[in-house]
């Protein structure tokens, strides 16, 4: 898969960034979706691509909803449960908009690329111009569509920028097979050619990583 692989799937009623993620996943692969919510993505992957897709979700109400729909989802969290899987158990592990909320993001990434050949990670970009300008101009923690909880109640304890993420991938030796900057609704942003521009104008980063 190259960075020019076109995104083919646009399912109705599915969050657009999930559609972009689904487009990165090969048919009939083994997938683990961490923080899968009620299982929208795994249901989509099972029905349209014949994937063996499973989920982990921390919120028991969401787990119950997913299992009630016949989806293989277990209650658990990224920080504690990834360690229980064997090496290379999956072809893809997905962490959608959750990396910034885990306790040990670096360890979670390491585990993801231990249990899976590839990892798909999306996160809200703290380098977005609105975040930067609000902090600069008001001197207060930014409030944007992507960062919309007050600092004292946000679950997002590890915010990072698209540039930060590139740096971590380089430091830990993960190959970036594909990356996108997208807006909050999950539409692709046109700044893919320049990391600096993407870091300024992309509301979310979406990465397809592979261990080297």
């Amino acid at each position: 898969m190259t960075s020019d692989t076109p995104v083919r799937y646009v399912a109705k009623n599915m969050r657009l960034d999930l559609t972009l993620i689904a487009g990165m996943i090969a048919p009939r692969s083994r997938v683990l979706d961490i923080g899968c919510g009620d299982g929208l993505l795994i249901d989509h992957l099972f029905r349209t691509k014949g994937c063996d897709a499973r989920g982990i979700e921390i919120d028991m109400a969401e787990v119950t909803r997913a299992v009630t729909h016949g989806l293989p989802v277990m209650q658990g969290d990224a920080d504690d449960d990834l360690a229980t899987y064997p090496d290379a158990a999956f072809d893809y592990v997905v962490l959608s908009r959750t990396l910034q909320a885990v306790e040990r993001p670096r360890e979670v990434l390491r585990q993801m690329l231990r249990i899976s050949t590839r990892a798909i990670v999306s996160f809200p970009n703290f380098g977005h111009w609105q975040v930067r300008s609000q902090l600069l101009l008001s001197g207060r923690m930014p409030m944007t569509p992507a960062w919309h909880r007050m600092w004292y109640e946000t679950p997002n304890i590890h915010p990072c920028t698209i540039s930060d993420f590139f740096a971590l991938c380089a430091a830990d030796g993960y190959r970036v097979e594909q990356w996108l900057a997208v807006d909050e609704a999950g539409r692709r942003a046109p700044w893919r050619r320049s990391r600096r521009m993407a870091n300024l104008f992309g509301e979310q980063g979406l990465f397809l990583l592979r261990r080297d």
Partner: protein
Amino acid sequence: MDQAPPLPEINHQSVLIEGGLALDCGVHLRQLVVAYRTYGTLNAARSNAVLICHALTGDQYVAETHPVSGKPGWWGEMVGPGKPVDTDKYFVICANVLGGCMGSTGPRSPHDDRPGEPWGIEFPPVTIPDMVRAQKKLIDHLGIERLFAVVGGSMGGMQVLAWAALYPAHVFAAVPVAAAAFHSAQNIAFHEVGRQAIFADPDFHAGRYWQHEAIPARGLAVARMTAHITYLSEAALSRKFGRKLRGADSLTWFGDRFEVESYLEHQGSSFVRRFDANSYLTITRAMDFFDLAADHGGVLAEAFRGTKTRFLLVSFSSDWLFPTAQCRAIARALNHVAANVSFVEIDSDKGHDAFLLDEPDFTRTMRGFLAGAAEAAGLT
């Protein structure tokens, strides 16, 4: 209660298994009878069979009026036409466990060497895997190669785990509910209190009470009362009884009885009318022996290596007998072998008993999981 009549003799639907059964303890049971009930219709491909495994004091009458107590089936809310385990779709089988007292071979059955008298206290020790091997012989007898699902709660859940470990190719989906991969020291301790109560009853007669036309009713009732406390939660007891008195608004100091006392008395006295004391000893011991990891070099995951079975694990938040942590340990062991696992903890204040009661989240979960598994199995 002390002069309770002997258990009624009932003709249970059953099958005599050719060749008997070799037990874990080394004894070969020559005479093996498995009593069972079925509901629904086996399809032409014989692919829609669901085996229900009952708990310690349950039996095969899962979805119909009980022949002794006259009460509705013990899982009537879960199993039946249109229910989560839908007998319009699935062929449901439930067998009385080996060692039981509702028609399957157990302490009340004729002794292999002295057919004129029952096994009684001499019935060999059995294990949860022994129970499962006996069920497998029933499934073979019914001509079923692969069970679509094996479902059970508490000791039934232990049997489900043993099924998945012993016969992975014959179980498409497994649903252990409120279960554990081993019986904890606390669980064994409570069982031992019950057993000691039975031993201490003068009517026990060293386990040969049938020779004296007696039953150790008091001891068995106390065993049941103790066990029953472990099935409930503090919150459930408070909600149901609180400190309410029987027949009085406040303490009168003349033989006052709390509601919770008479409730337990009732649980105990109705139990002895349908259950055999030697069976109770045999089955509680089988639960105590259960340790699935120990059978696999101390590593639980090894019990499931290579499994293709789809699992649904369910625990209940207020269950302190088989707590969620036990269930999570099973889930993680299954993760170790990259098994297909769903795991849900149902929020309930009803304790261990919740699996038998009307818990809408639980019934919805069961229905959805089975529907998803049926789709994956091509059963729809």
